[in-house]
């Protein structure tokens, strides 16, 4: 009897002890992303990529609460307040759009919460107004456009460039022009959410340009590419990776074939981490991952890696662990710059049909260890 009690007590002490060892402080992540409306495909990929990395980590102390911002800034702010005040999350993440991010991040970091961005990376938060609690796991908004500018300089003398009239659209064309050395035939800003591009395509036809650069994420890009293919205009089209990402390719169809784009990753990357990511994602969700899924996957990997080392309650230590970026990213080289945005390689990709599915094939490397133009203004 006595023996039994002692044994039970010992087992209990032991189990408490071991769980105490493995048990870090619980970490609660608030994911605000777009799960309804026209931009929902991007948010769904963000959520799924993020949750895949959390699931793969096997870390039971991490919980994620997810809410839909419907691509509305005011809603995103309300959700962030609720997550901070009543859900008591430690880390926020998931916002797809730069205008929503600008509405949420300043308030969140002022309240001492970490924000790890899975996509949006406006210039305003990369330079003088960088913040030690704000990390970006994707890129700086300008990066992929800069890469296309660099690529276009080599083969194109006169470019027609087009983007929607919102912060990321302006960052896009600014980034493109930073590296493009040829002549700009016209620089056109369209309304966000515009669905008919006939007027712009007519201008492209008349412009005498030998190349077209478009940044039109989500449904806008689908509409543009389909209409462009029907217009009979034969000028080559290129854009940043999002214009031809996996979330929109099935809807564009063959009209996208041959389009050149830039990306920090493509599903055909030949490394173990990328192959595992693609096959895990396909097994879990029955589709190819997009660039948004990859970015969210890495953001989650970063949080998981820091949580394995230290408690999120110790913000400085947690930050330092995030900054070390101790992860194996499917994109290969990945480290953080002084402004907590990535330094990474950027590649040229081309839309091809492979096994009956439209996807991006890697063509060549454009930039090695590429940072951004704003880091020098960031005093962290």
């Amino acid at each position, binding site marked *: 009897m006595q023996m039994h009690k002692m044994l039970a007590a010992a087992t209990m002490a032991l189990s408490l002890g071991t769980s105490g060892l493995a048990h870090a402080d619980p970490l609660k992540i608030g994911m605000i992303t777009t799960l309804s409306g026209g931009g929902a495909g991007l948010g769904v990929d963000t959520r799924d990529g993020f949750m895949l990395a959390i699931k793969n980590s096997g870390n039971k102390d991490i919980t994620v609460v997810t809410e839909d911002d419907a691509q509305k800034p005011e809603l995103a702010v309300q959700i962030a307040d609720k997550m901070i005040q009543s859900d008591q999350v430690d880390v926020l993440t998931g916002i797809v759009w730069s205008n929503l991010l600008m509405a949420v991040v300043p308030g969140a970091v002022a309240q001492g919460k970490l924000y790890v961005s899975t996509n949006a990376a406006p210039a305003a938060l990369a330079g003088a107004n960088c913040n030690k609690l704000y990390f970006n796991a994707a890129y700086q908004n300008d990066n992929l456009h800069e890469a296309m500018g660099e690529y276009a300089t080599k083969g194109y003398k006169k470019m027609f460039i087009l983007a929607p009239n919102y912060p990321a659209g302006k960052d896009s064309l600014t980034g493109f022009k930073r590296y493009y050395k040829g002549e700009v035939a016209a620089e*056109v800003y369209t309304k966000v959410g515009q669905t008919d591009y006939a007027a712009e395509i007519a201008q492209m036809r008349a412009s005498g340009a030998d190349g077209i650069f478009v940044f039109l994420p989500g449904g806008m890009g689908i509409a543009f590419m389909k209409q462009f293919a029907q217009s009979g205009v034969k000028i080559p089209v290129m854009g940043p990776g999002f214009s031809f990402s996996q979330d929109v390719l099935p809807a564009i169809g063959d009209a996208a074939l041959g389009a050149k784009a830039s990306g920090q990753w493509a599903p055909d990357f030949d490394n173990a981490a990328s192959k595992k990511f693609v096959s895990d994602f396909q097994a879990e969700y029955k589709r190819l991952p997009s660039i948004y899924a990859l970015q969210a996957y890495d953001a989650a990997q970063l949080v998981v890696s820091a949580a394995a080392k230290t408690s999120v309650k110790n913000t400085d230590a947690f930050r330092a662990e995030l900054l070390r970026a101790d992860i194996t990213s499917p994109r290969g080289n990945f480290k953080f710059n002084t402004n907590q945005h990535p330094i990474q390689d950027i590649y040229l990709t081309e839309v091809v049909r492979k096994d009956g599915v439209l996807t991006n094939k890697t063509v060549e490397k454009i930039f090695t260890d590429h940072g951004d133009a704003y880091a020098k203004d960031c005093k962290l």
Partner: protein
Amino acid sequence: MTFALALEQLLNGLQLGVMLFLMAAGLTLIFGVMGLINLAHGSLYMVGAFACAAVAAWTGSFWLGLAASLACAAAAGAVVELVVIRRLYDRDHLDQVLATFALILIFSEGTRWLFGSFPLYLDIPPLLQGAVQLPGGGEYPIYRLAIIAIGALVAVGLYVLIGRTRLGMRIRAGESDREMIGALGVDIRTLYTVVFALGSALAGLSGALVGATQSVQVGMGEPILILCFVVIVIGGIGSIKGALLGALLVGICDTMGRFLLPQLIALLLPPAQAGMVGGAVSSMLIYVVMALVLAVKPRGLFPPAHV
């Protein structure tokens, strides 16, 4: 600026106007006959596009898809009228707006539940692929010309239907005095359902036609709905003729504004800024036009006589 470019832009404006007319005709018909503000009209446009994409993917035929879009949108419209709208005719406009806004949410989430969050693929039929030569050396997509033709046919069809048939006579009578035609023995409830289904079918048709040139996705109807309200306010609420002219005015103003304003502003500002300012001003242009029209003719260009 060459003649070819000007002609192409004019056709673009015409085509946008025709698309808007198909949507606005249903909206203004429903308002004219039943006095109902139907915010869910954009959802019926989405239903048409999804029905067309789903049937085209299943059968491989765009034309069957187009037929399905008409049938599905008309059926969805009839069901909505029978279940929800019928209870709203005697309520004030605020209740109607609230209920039809709820319908938008129900349709959107229902569509997402059925088809998922990713856009569907819908291509134009092989018969209408490609572009034709325009006088002056430009090229123009055949499909857009076909849309203009379909829009013209629908306009003529509506004119004949409303002006020359018994159903049209009842619709006109319903617009003038709905108690009186009820008293004269016309089954007003059935008439309302028919008109609502007709308006819905037109929305579904335009959704399917536009879906082939854009992305078929949840929420695609709302941006175009806003434009349609601008159209019917400019044209005079309840007037089909007003909807036609309003739609053409909005289509051409919007297209020409997007094309010409940045170039005009470029005469005053450096090109990079001109693009940004021009983009911003041209997206406001149709609202400015609407304000001007309302300042001169507060009830729109062609207000129905009895209002």
